């Protein structure tokens, strides 16, 4: 029982919410075009099965790519920061700049830069920009939180910067990094969708495309079906990260009871 609770608890909540939603819609007679009931959405999901799944796959692909790119970029940057206070002070604000620049606003520039024919690449860049900051901030915190005593141990043995990095700072920062990544993976997904909204092309039609399409047709059930797929994807990716975290932190870290 205790073993399955981590599976049962969220499932129960979901079921409860779905039923509540269904009942509210039925009770209030909310029309379909304002808020479809879960049953309508499920029906639409079945009807548009093919479209929606292939779109979800497109979005999934970009999300994963953006996530990997963003994480590696952010971790590398944080590592760079840890090597030099000057670099950190100089570049951290630049990272903040990228974080706070809205995708919508820079999409045109990126499109010009990569060329209209590389819209997918533009999406990838934009999604990466959306996702990288939490990993950066958390890796930075993690590396800085390394115990002074452990640092002294490494100094004593004349550890090179590289050794200190891979044998001390990274392992120590791992729980921090993973938490950053747990935030980041959701942002990658959001980023992939938003970027498709603002810079997409007709050649790759992710979930944003379906949302727009359904919105144009006022087909709310399909719109919500796409949204639900998106959310399922998000929760799935999050659970994946949680699982990875559990494996990586297995025995030693206090937070790994999760």
């Amino acid at each position, binding site marked *: 029982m205790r073993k399955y609770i981590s599976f049962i608890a969220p499932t129960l909540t979901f079921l409860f919410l779905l039923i509540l939603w269904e009942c509210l819609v039925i009770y209030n007679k909310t029309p379909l075009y304002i808020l479809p009931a879960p049953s309508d959405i499920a029906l639409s999901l079945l009807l548009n099965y093919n479209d929606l799944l292939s779109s979800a796959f497109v979005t999934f692909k970009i999300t994963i790519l953006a996530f990997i790119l963003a994480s590696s970029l952010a971790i590398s940057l944080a590592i760079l920061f840890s090597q030099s206070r000057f670099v950190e002070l100089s570049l951290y604000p630049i990272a903040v700049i990228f974080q706070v620049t809205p995708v919508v606003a820079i999409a045109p520039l990126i499109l010009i830069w990569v060329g209209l024919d590389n819209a997918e690449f533009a999406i990838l860049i934009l999604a990466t920009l959306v996702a990288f900051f939490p990993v950066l901030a958390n890796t930075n915190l993690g590396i800085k939180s390394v115990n002074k*005593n452990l640092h002294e141990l490494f100094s004593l043995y004349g550890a090179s910067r590289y*050794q200190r990095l891979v*044998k001390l700072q990274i392992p120590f920062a791992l729980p921090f990094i993973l938490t950053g990544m747990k935030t980041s993976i959701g942002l990658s997904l959001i980023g992939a969708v938003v970027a498709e909204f603002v810079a997409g092309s007709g050649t790759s039609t992710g979930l944003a495309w379906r949302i727009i399409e359904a919105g144009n047709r006022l087909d709310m059930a399909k719109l919500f079906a796409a949204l639900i797929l998106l959310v399922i994807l998000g929760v799935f990716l999050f659970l994946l990260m949680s699982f990875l975290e559990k494996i990586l932190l297995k025995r*030693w*870290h206090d937070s790994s009871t999760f």
Partner: protein
Amino acid sequence: MLIFNNIVKNYEEPVLGPINLKIKNNSFVSIIGPSGSGKSTILRLASGLIKESSGLISYEDCVKPKMGFVFQDSTLLPWRTVIDNILLPLELTNKNISKPKDKSLMWLSRVGLDGKENSFPNELSGGQKMRVSIARAMIQGASLLLLDEPFSALDEVTRRKLEDDLLELWKVNNITVLFVTHSVTEAVYLSERVIVMSSSPGTVVEDVVIKRKVNNNFDQTEEFMSQVRYLSGILRQEGEGK
């Protein structure tokens, strides 16, 4: 030769110094003194982990010797098993030792931890952690050993065994040992020379060479006892003088 020349260490207030010391190569020197008198600080200064506020620390030939350090609190990497913790110095100094694993298992057994090689630090008792830390300091064959109360978390049997191991190691390998302890008997039993510190700020109040006519069962001799009594007396004065 390790030379402390007019060393002073201040944090917000002065905590140590001025200290003048010469530690000869291959000597075994103990430092005793009240808690807070700066014993750990001296070791950290000697190893270069912290910088002196003024004065100069120099090594013979101006080369920093290879150091092993047992910190007062066992400083283990929580994500590494016992054996991987012990292997750390070898990894860091890139020393190509043949059969490092065997060597570390040998040390593990010497500190009485056979079978614990795959435990994680948080699964060890206080004394066991300390022993892992000792094994780690020993494994790379340092020429200067800095030991900060390495045995104080250990029961007397284990402690006595490790003391003898340490003496053996020192005699065979031509290494220099700087040994912090709060046990006067331990200091007298082990070392050639004992330095007594007083506190606020920490200074050297006594610096004696231990006389040792016999080596076997030295701690049963009157010579041993009298030196212990002498040093204890000084320490007591220091403690009560406060």
